[in-house]
């Protein structure tokens, strides 16, 4: 047996139960779902009728519970299932939710909370003020340790193949922290400006805001932070790690190679890149046209890599990987991409005016573009590269540009928007055609097409079929072939395994080749993909190479392991309404027949960034901006913590899960949630508490000190219309307590209580009521029919004045407090198997022998303490806990005797 008694819930009922049992020498496990013990009591101002300070009484009990030698406390944990076993004991499954903070290391300094960029309603202040995603529940929390709210990974971050914390930089941009946003992207890759422009942005495809008016322009926000950094001339806020003495050679300076180099250098390794081309950047530097990605931006990104000491040798084609080993490199990474253009395999292809797309794009990007002015150009292919080539040909002055592809318009591999843009610029499209031959003797004169009847076979494999009789010819002077790209790996063949398509075969998790010190990543392994995919693979390769160099075991499953994706419908459900915030336009300026390569997409203005980042829904709550990690002096924050399953055995169970408050918006005639100066009793208790959310009692509508305050008693209690005929027992008394405290805090305030009757059963309770009346509270017998809001936020209450002939009257107030009642906590229904733990007709845990054995439930060995079995105030809950634990102790003893 691991523990004698499991106590579920750590409000006053649970703490009292645990302490009494612990004092008797029993081993107790307390499981609390919030991050602190204390329940509702610690959040109260004072307690009736003594007016003792609630936290002064509660805090010592909370500390005693945590520090008691016989009590183990699990906060931020949930009991998932309890099963009674044959021998009368119980097996218990517990889910320990991760705090993402090492409790032992955290000093409770709250620096993480101060730095956090996400604001959410503070449930511990009854939603009157904000808290942060990283938070310490309240000032007297025990344990006083931070916790980070992370229900999962935000879709944008989850969907980013590069592993960039997209939500993080959006939230930093929202706070105006552009340099920090830039640095956050640098944690993944140095290519901030390039990705900000040329990334196809899978983050935006799944953005939850997309199901409202359109996604947050996540990529363009990144572009803004990159541009802001580069224009600022601020130094790079990143330094290489301390030197390890290990040397790594990287072949290829594309997104994969550059990212790997960056990461390895940050880890302290010496890195040298060999690049075959005349500029660094791979496709970024050589082929993606300047109108989408200016060369200067690529140069700035590459500058980040060289700034931390990576050496790049240009115009150096590596053909012998063994030679690199001989030069003393401890590891080699091959990241040579897919530099070869596919061939048509038709008659006439050998003519000099038939050029591979990559050559065409490269000469154009490097400013040595072919002279096509006045010429008719045909581009063959239906993908992104073909579109780039066709649009480049227009800019180079071609007379006409026709794109020919096998696929019909809707099947083209290029994105729809790209095709639309090409058409808008005057590219003509001949879709659904294959190439029969290139016409001409010494030079190209035209191209003959044949109708493509299907591109794929029944199994979805690429297998075009044609109607050979349906043909047409297009007269042209130049043919650009953009029908796919492949790797150039023959020279690596003796050492490395290759697949049929020439890509390198490496372990998909570790990216290690058959030669242990040689790794490969990016498109040379995966075939043509996207920049962001190559970046992600570059990161993975660096991580694995670092493990290899340090002789650590590989952990391919752990790398970039994210919490599950938060789904859009769950995010949208968190709010009752979403106000409309339209998405911005694309910002692209398209002209027919463009004649230069200037960038077509306008940058976002700061106001647009502000507006757009303000549309983010904070899907994963924590944005992973890493600000907390950066400021925590104790290094206590570990975002890689994961939920833990704990199985344990106990002899008895005490259910002390307390109650819920009536949701005041279920009485719409009182206007809670719509009228800003209508609050609940719990909110007023918070306003009166020493750790209150405002500087004093103020109206939430405008911050004014209220002078006329009304109480509406029995809100949600003794009310068949909301299905609750029961008296909640506590609301009369807490209202009377608050009346007295208000008169202390706001001596000029008038307080009026509208009541059916005042219920004050309990020692000293009636005297307490009389005292409130003597202090000036007016009690009016009458139920409120309706509340109206005036333009100035004041409230008009309409009521039946029962003691004056039942006349309907109206009265005006500054602030209205709804004395909300108590409801059962339905969590108790999930604890045991269906129907095992019985509930009374009002859904409270049933006490089967309430008169003689209070606290005994329908299950032998399971007891209930406090308000889980019905409305109780603090003294009653303490008494009830005493009754429950006496029986729990007796049960434990009986089991001992039996065994």
């Amino acid at each position, binding site marked *: 047996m691991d523990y004698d008694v499991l106590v579920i819930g750590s409000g006053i009922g649970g703490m009292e139960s645990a302490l009494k049992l612990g004092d008797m020498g029993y081993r107790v496990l307390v499981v609390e779902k919030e991050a602190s013990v204390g329940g509702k009591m610690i959040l109260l101002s004072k307690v009736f009728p003594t007016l003792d300070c609630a936290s002064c009484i509660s805090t010592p009990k909370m500390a005693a519970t945590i520090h008691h030698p016989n009590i183990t406390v699990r906060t931020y944990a949930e009991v998932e299932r309890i099963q009674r076993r044959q021998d009368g004991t119980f097996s218990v499954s517990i889910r320990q939710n991760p705090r993402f903070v090492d409790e032992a290391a955290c000093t409770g300094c709250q*620096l993480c909370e101060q730095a956090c*960029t996400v*604001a959410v309603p503070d449930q511990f202040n009854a939603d009157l003020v904000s808290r942060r995603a990283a938070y310490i529940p309240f000032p007297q929390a025990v344990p006083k340790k931070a916790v980070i709210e992370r229900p999962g990974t935000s879709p944008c971050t989850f969907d980013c193949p590069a592993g960039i914390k997209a939500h993080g930089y959006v939230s930093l941009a929202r706070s105006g922290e552009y340099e920090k946003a830039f640095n956050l992207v640098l944690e993944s890759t140095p290519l901030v400006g390039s990705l900000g422009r040329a990334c196809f942005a899978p983050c935006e495809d799944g953005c939850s805001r997309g199901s409202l008016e359109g996604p947050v322009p996540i990529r363009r926000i990144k572009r803004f932070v990159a541009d802001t950094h580069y224009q600022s001339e601020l130094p790079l806020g990143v330094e290489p790690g301390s030197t390890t003495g290990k040397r790594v050679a990287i072949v290829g300076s594309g997104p994969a190679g550059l990212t790997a180099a960056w990461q390895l250098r940050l880890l302290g390794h010496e890195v040298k890149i060999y690049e075959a081309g005349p500029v660094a950047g791979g496709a970024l530097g050589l082929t993606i046209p300047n109108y989408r990605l200016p060369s200067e931006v690529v140069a700035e990104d590459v500058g980040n890599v060289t700034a931390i000491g990576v050496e790049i040798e240009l115009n150096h084609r590596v053909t012998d990987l063994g030679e690199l080993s001989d030069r003393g490199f401890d590891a080699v990474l091959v990241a040579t991409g897919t530099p070869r253009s596919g061939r048509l395999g038709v008659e006439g292809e050998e003519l000099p005016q038939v050029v591979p797309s990559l050559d065409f794009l490269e000469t154009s990007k490097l400013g040595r573009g072919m002279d096509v002015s006045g010429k008719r150009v045909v581009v063959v292919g239906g993908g992104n590269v073909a579109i780039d080539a066709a649009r480049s040909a227009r800019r180079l002055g071609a007379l006409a540009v026709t794109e020919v592809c096998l696929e019909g318009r809707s099947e083209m591999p290029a994105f729809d928007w790209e095709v639309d843009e090409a058409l808008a610029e005057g590219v003509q499209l001949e879709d659904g055609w294959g190439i029969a031959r290139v016409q001409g003797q010494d030079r190209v004169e035209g191209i003959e097409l044949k109708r493509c009847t299907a591109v794929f076979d029944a199994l979805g494999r690429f297998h075009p079929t044609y109607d050979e009789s349906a043909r047409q010819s297009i007269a042209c002077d130049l043919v650009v072939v953009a029908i796919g790209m492949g790797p150039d790996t023959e020279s690596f063949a003796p050492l490395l395994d290759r697949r049929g398509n020439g890509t390198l075969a490496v372990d998909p998790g570790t990216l290690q080749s058959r030669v242990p010190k040689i790794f490969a990543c990016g498109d040379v392994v995966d075939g043509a993909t996207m920049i962001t995919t190559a970046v992600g693979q570059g990161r993975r390769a660096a991580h694995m190479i670092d493990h290899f160099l340090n002789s650590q075991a590989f952990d391919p499953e752990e790398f970039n392991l994210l919490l599950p994706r938060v789904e859009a419908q769950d995010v949208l459900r968190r709010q009752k309404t979403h106000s409309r915030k339209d998405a911005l336009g694309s910002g692209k300026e398209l002209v027919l027949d463009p004649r230069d390569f200037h960038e077509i997409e306008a940058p976002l203005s700061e106001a647009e960034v502000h507006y757009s980042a303000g549309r983010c829904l904070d899907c994963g709550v924590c944005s992973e901006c890493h600000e907390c990690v950066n400021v925590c002096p104790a290094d206590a924050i570990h975002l890689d913590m994961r939920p833990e399953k704990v199985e344990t055995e106990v002899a008895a169970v005490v259910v002390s899960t307390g109650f819920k408050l009536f949701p005041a918006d279920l009485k719409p005639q009182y206007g809670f949630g719509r009228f800003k100066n209508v609050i609940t009793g719990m909110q007023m208790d918070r306003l009166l508490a020493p750790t209150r959310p405002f500087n004093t009692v103020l109206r939430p509508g405008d911050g004014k000190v209220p002078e006329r305050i009304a109480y509406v008693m029995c809100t949600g209690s003794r009310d068949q219309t909301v299905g609750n005929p029961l008296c909640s027992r506590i609301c009369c008394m807490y209202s009377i307590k608050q009346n007295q405290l208000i008169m202390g805090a706001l001596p000029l305030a008038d307080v009026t209580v509208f009541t059916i009757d005042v219920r004050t059963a309990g020692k000293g309770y009636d005297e307490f009521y009389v005292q409130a009346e003597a202090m000036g509270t007016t009690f009016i017998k009458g139920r409120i029919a309706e509340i109206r*809001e005036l333009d100035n936020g004041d409230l008009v209450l309409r009521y039946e004045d029962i003691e004056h002939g039942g006349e309907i009257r109206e009265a005006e107030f500054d602030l209205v407090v709804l004395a909300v009642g108590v409801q059962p906590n339905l969590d108790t229904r999930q604890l045991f198997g269906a129907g095992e733990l019985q509930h009374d007709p009002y859904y409270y845990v049933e006490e089967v022998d309430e008169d003689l054995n209070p606290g005994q439930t329908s299950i032998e060995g399971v007891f209930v303490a406090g308000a889980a079995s019905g409305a109780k105030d603090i003294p009653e809950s303490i008494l009830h806990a005493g009754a429950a634990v006496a029986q729990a102790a007796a049960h434990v003893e009986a089991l001992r005797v039996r065994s």
Partner: protein
Amino acid sequence: MVVESRDLREVIREEPLRRREILKAVADGPRTVPEIAGLIGCPTHEVMYWVMGMRKYGYLAESSEADDEGLFHYRALERLTP
């Protein structure tokens, strides 16, 4: 002041976004919540959430007394962390 209510979560989420506007509004001296609301063009009850959040996290502090209209005046504080 009968204004359409936005969801509480949506309003509170905007605090980091509104912070700069509010700090600008109090740059020349302390202001009440209705004054700040007028300057930044937002409803007073929304400004209350942001001002109280900023007060909680050390960006703003209140005057010692309320004025004749029962309103406190909030001023910017030097904050240790950004």
